[in-house]
């Protein structure tokens, strides 16, 4: 049998067995509506509150600052649209970066149509946002800065603590999209001066369809989903109890295993980067070499196109992506790769390989065995490569 290597953990992860086990009773036995009054619903409510504490613990917040949502995207939408509205009296300016996830970017574009002013900060060639540019961008109308903690496409980590300290002093609210960071990087909303933080369970071996938003006490944030009094009146809708329990268990495990996970993944990432750069010509690493998520690799192979590469890797049992999964319906090259300065045709040939807890060094070896001939085969087909070789002679 051929090997199967799932190397797309930044897209989504499998629910781990302990998490599923924790969730199961809440589908069929403990199914009461947690907002109900009777005893059988109470254990249910308790389970939700335990999960809230688990999330709070993981990011050094208080339990009553955690609000459960339907996904990371909802958390991002809520934070941005909510602050834009709740602080409209104070100002209309929001600052973000040009390399955010679409959950932030498309929300910002929507807010622009509503008359808000958005500044998209540039990033350097590693994908790191410039703190200098941020300092120059804030003005007296700036109500919110939203920065991705670790980039989903290129893995680069931003200087959140430094930015948080600056914004804290300026009294400007700070939202952080930490969807990719939870379970991979230590997070401390106090030390980092974060006021709002988004996370999503399925990125750290929890279930899909449940996320959370941390809202620092004192931050005004109007509801995004109006209705019943769930989540202390701030997020309506019958609680996804099983999902919330899964999120809680998953974040607890991910946080307690953070160091072990990093120790597992960083050598895999580093070997893959070093060996690919050594064995394959005309390839570049996208994102920072060191300052990146532990299991995260993104390459651009000149002269070849991403989709073809993915299909051939798929045939070889290697599951990867060419950036963000949410945009696979689109033909546009990645806005992140363009933002770090790649030309269009190279941005098209990018490959993201992201490792997780089930991967081993043998998986890396397997990729190193399969990838070079695939790249070669596609280059042999490529008119761009032909032109390039001819121009060399």
């Amino acid at each position: 049998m051929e090997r199967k290597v799932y190397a797309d953990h930044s897209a989504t992860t499998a629910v781990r067995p302990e998490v599923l086990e924790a969730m199961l009773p809440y589908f069929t036995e403990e199914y009461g509506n947690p907002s109900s009054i009777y005893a059988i619903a109470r254990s249910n409510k308790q389970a939700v509150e335990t999960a809230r504490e688990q999330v709070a613990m993981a990011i050094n917040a208080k339990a009553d600052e955690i609000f459960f949502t339907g996904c990371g995207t909802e958390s991002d939408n809520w934070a941005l649209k909510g602050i834009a509205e709740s602080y409209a009296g104070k100002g209309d300016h929001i600052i973000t970066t040009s390399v955010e996830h679409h959950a932030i970017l498309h929300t910002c574009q929507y807010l622009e149509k509503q008359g808000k002013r958005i500044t998209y900060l540039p990033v350097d060639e590693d994908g790191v946002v410039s703190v200098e540019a941020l300092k120059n961008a804030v003005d007296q109308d700036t109500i919110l800065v939203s920065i991705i903690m670790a980039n989903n496409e290129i893995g680069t980590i931003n200087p959140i603590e430094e930015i948080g300290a600056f914004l804290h002093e300026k009294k400007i609210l700070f939202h952080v999209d930490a969807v990719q960071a939870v379970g991979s990087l230590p997070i401390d909303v106090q030390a980092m001066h974060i006021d709002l933080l988004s996370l999503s369970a399925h990125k750290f071996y929890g279930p899909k369809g449940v996320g959370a938003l941390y809202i620092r006490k004192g931050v005004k944030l109007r509801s995004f989903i109006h209705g019943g009094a769930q989540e202390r009146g701030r997020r309506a809708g019958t609680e996804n109890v099983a999902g919330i329990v899964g999120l809680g268990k998953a974040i607890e495990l991910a946080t307690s295993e953070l160091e072990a996970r990093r120790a597992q993944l960083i050598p895999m990432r580093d070997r893959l980067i070093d060996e690919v750069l050594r064995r394959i010509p005309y390839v570049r690493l996208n994102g920072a070499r060191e300052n990146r998520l532990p299991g995260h690799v993104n390459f651009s192979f000149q002269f070849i196109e991403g989709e073809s590469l993915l299909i051939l890797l798929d045939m070889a049992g290697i599951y990867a992506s060419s950036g963000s999964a949410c945009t696979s319906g689109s033909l546009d090259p990645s806005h992140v790769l363009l933002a770090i300065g790649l030309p269009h045709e190279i941005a098209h040939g990018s490959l993201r390989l992201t490792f997780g807890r089930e991967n081993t060094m043998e998986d890396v070896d397997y990729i190193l065995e399969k990838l070079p001939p695939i790249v070669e085969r596609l280059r042999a087909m490529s008119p761009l490569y032909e032109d390039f070789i001819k121009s060399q002679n």
Partner: protein
Amino acid sequence: MYSEKVMDHFMNPRNMGEIEDADGVGTVGNAKCGDIMRIFLKVEDGVIQDVKFKTFGCGAAVATSSMATEMVVGKTVEEALKVTNKAVMEALDGLPPVKVHCSLLAEQAIHAALWDYAQKHNITIEGLKPPVEDIEEIEEEE
């Protein structure tokens, strides 16, 4: 996402490569997706004797190039002109909607190669328009 035929032509592309002394070579690109296709033709007595392609593009782009080359080989230049992107798509059992333009790339690459052949041999081919750099211009007309 792709039909079995598309996958077959993608995995085992027919007529991939170059013709050293081609009678016509056409290259077209699509700025929207950044993909590029090149067709080489060998023509004798108005009949396409050999055809090869090279493609920088997605699975559909590779498969449509491969299929298109199979469909024009052995045909007269006039017949080759009538091989439309629709026909190529049908021969591949269809393409996903976002991939329709990939088949247009194949059609236009063949037209571009035929144009180049006509130019080099000083002939005119009925109904053949000069090639465009970027097939998006054609898509917008439709």
